[in-house]
C-alpha cells in the first residue's frame, strides 16, 4: 500500500496571466501544458512528473482538489476498498480525465476537501536529467523552488458543537491512507481538542497538514528550497516582484521549517520553506504542542501569532 507524496494541487485563479507570471517568475515553475478549458499546468525544475500545479480560471480563489501519487496502480483498487470499507465513497476517474495522467481515485475527505490518488503521470524528467546531472540548472528563475512539498488544509473546527474535522481527517489519513502523525497542537481542557495535525507518508516531517477554522479551505501550498539563505533570497524575489508577503522569513517550532509565506495574485497563500527538519519515522514519538505555547509552535522566534496567518485563507 503506498501513498508516496503530494502529486499536484489544482488552484482556482481569477487572473490567469497574473497567476502564470507569479508561479513562473516568483516561484520559478515552468509551464508544461495548457488545455482547451484554459487550465495551465506547471512543474518545478527538480520534479520529474509533467506537472505539480494546475491553475484553473475562476471567479474566486481556492483549491479544487489535491492529488497524491501512489506507488503501484493496484494500490488504487486497494485504497478504494479501504475507503469504502470505512464508510466513504470513492470514484475511479478514467485515464485521461487529466492530461498525461492515469486513472484517478476521487473522494472527499471528512473535511469535505476533494482528494485524488493516481499512480501514473507522464515522466518528463528533472531539468538536470538523470545521467551525470549537475546539481542545478542554469535557467533557474525567481526562488527556484525544487518541488511542491505539502499543503495545509483548513478544516471545520467547532468543539462547542462537537465538530472537529482536523481530528477526523487525521484518523482517516492514519487508518485508511496509512499515513502517520508527526506533530499536533492541542487546545481546550487537558488538550482535549486537536486543533492542528501534521502527517507524513515519507521521511519528511509533513506531507499534509490540517488546521481548524470556521470553514474548509486551503491555507497554503508549500514549495521546498535548499537552505535558509534560499528563503531570504526568495524574499528578495518577492520584494522585487511586489508580491504580498504574509510572514517574513522565520522558523516554525512545528516541523522546524525555515519559512516565508506570501500570496499569489488571487490571494492563495504560498510558502517556500527550507530544512528537512528531522527524519520522520513511524515509530518516532508524536510531538505535541500545547495551547499555551501555540505561538512558539507556529512562529518559534517571536512566539506571537499574526491574525492574518491564522484567519486568512481561500
Amino acid at each position: 500500500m503506498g501513498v508516496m507524496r503530494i502529486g499536484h494541487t489544482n488552484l482556482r485563479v481569477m487572473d490567469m496571466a497574473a497567476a502564470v507570471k507569479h508561479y513562473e517568475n516568483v516561484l520559478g515553475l515552468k509551464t508544461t501544458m495548457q488545455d482547451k478549458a484554459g487550465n495551465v499546468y506547471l512543474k518545478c525544475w527538480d520534479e520529474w512528473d509533467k506537472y505539480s500545479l494546475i491553475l484553473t480560471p475562476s471567479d474566486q480563489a481556492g483549491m479544487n482538489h489535491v492529488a497524491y501519487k501512489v506507488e503501484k496502480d493496484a494500490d488504487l483498487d486497494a485504497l478504494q476498498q479501504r475507503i469504502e470499507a470505512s464508510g466513504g465513497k470513492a470514484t475511479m476517474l478514467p485515464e485521461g480525465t487529466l492530461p498525461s495522467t492515469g486513472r484517478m481515485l476521487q473522494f472527499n475527505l471528512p473535511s469535505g476537501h476533494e482528494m485524488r490518488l493516481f499512480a501514473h503521470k507522464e515522466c518528463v524528467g528533472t531539468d538536470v536529467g538523470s545521467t551525470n546531472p549537475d546539481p542545478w540548472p542554469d535557467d533557474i528563475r525567481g526562488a527556484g523552488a525544487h518541488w511542491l512539498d505539502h499543503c495545509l488544509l483548513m478544516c471545520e473546527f467547532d468543539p462547542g458543537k462537537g465538530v472537529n474535522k482536523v481530528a477526523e481527517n487525521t484518523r482517516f489519513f492514519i487508518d485508511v491512507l496509512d499515513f502517520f502523525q508527526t506533530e499536533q497542537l492541542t487546545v481546550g481542557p487537558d488538550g482535549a481538542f486537536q486543533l492542528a495535525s501534521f502527517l507524513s507518508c515519507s521521511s519528511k516531517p509533513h506531507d499534509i497538514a490540517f488546521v481548524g477554522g470556521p470553514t474548509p479551505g486551503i491555507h497554503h501550498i508549500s514549495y521546498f528550497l535548499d537552505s535558509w539563505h534560499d528563503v531570504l533570497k526568495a524574499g528578495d524575489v518577492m520584494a522585487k516582484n511586489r508580491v504580498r508577503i504574509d510572514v517574513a522569513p522565520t522558523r516554525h517550532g512545528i516541523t522546524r521549517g525555515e519559512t516565508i509565506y506570501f500570496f499569489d495574485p488571487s490571494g492563495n497563500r504560498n510558502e517556500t520553506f527550507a530544512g528537512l527538519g528531522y527524519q520522520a519515522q513511524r515509530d518516532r514519538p508524536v510531538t505535541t504542542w500545547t495551547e499555551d505555547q501555540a505561538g512558539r509552535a507556529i512562529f518559534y522566534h517571536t512566539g506571537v501569532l499574526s491574525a492574518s496567518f491564522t484567519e486568512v485563507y481561500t
Partner: protein
Amino acid sequence: MQTGESYPCATNESLLQGMLRLGRKGIPVGCVNGGCGVCKVRIAEGRVRVLGPISRAHVTAEEEALGYTLACRVAPTVAVRLEVAGRLAKPISKGFAAQANHVLTK
C-alpha cells in the same frame, strides 16, 4: 462614522494599500489580492475604480451592486466614506475582537 478615522489615499492605489502604506489599521488585512475577503467594505459615499477581480465567494454580484467590495481591489476616484463589513471569528485566535471600524478617506 463610528470612529471618525480618516486617511489620505491616492487615486492610483487601493483603499487597503493606502492604509497599509501609512501603517494605519482599521480595515482587516489579508491577502491584499482579492481572494480572501477579509477586507470587505461597503462604499457608503463616493466613487471607486476597480483594480482587479474580487472573489465571488466573498462578494456576490448582488452585494457589489449594493456597494460592497474588497478594499484591496478598488482605488478612490473621489473622497470615499466606507464601512468595514465585518470579519469571521476564527477559533485559533479567540479573543481577537471583531472590528467594525469606519474609515473616512480624504
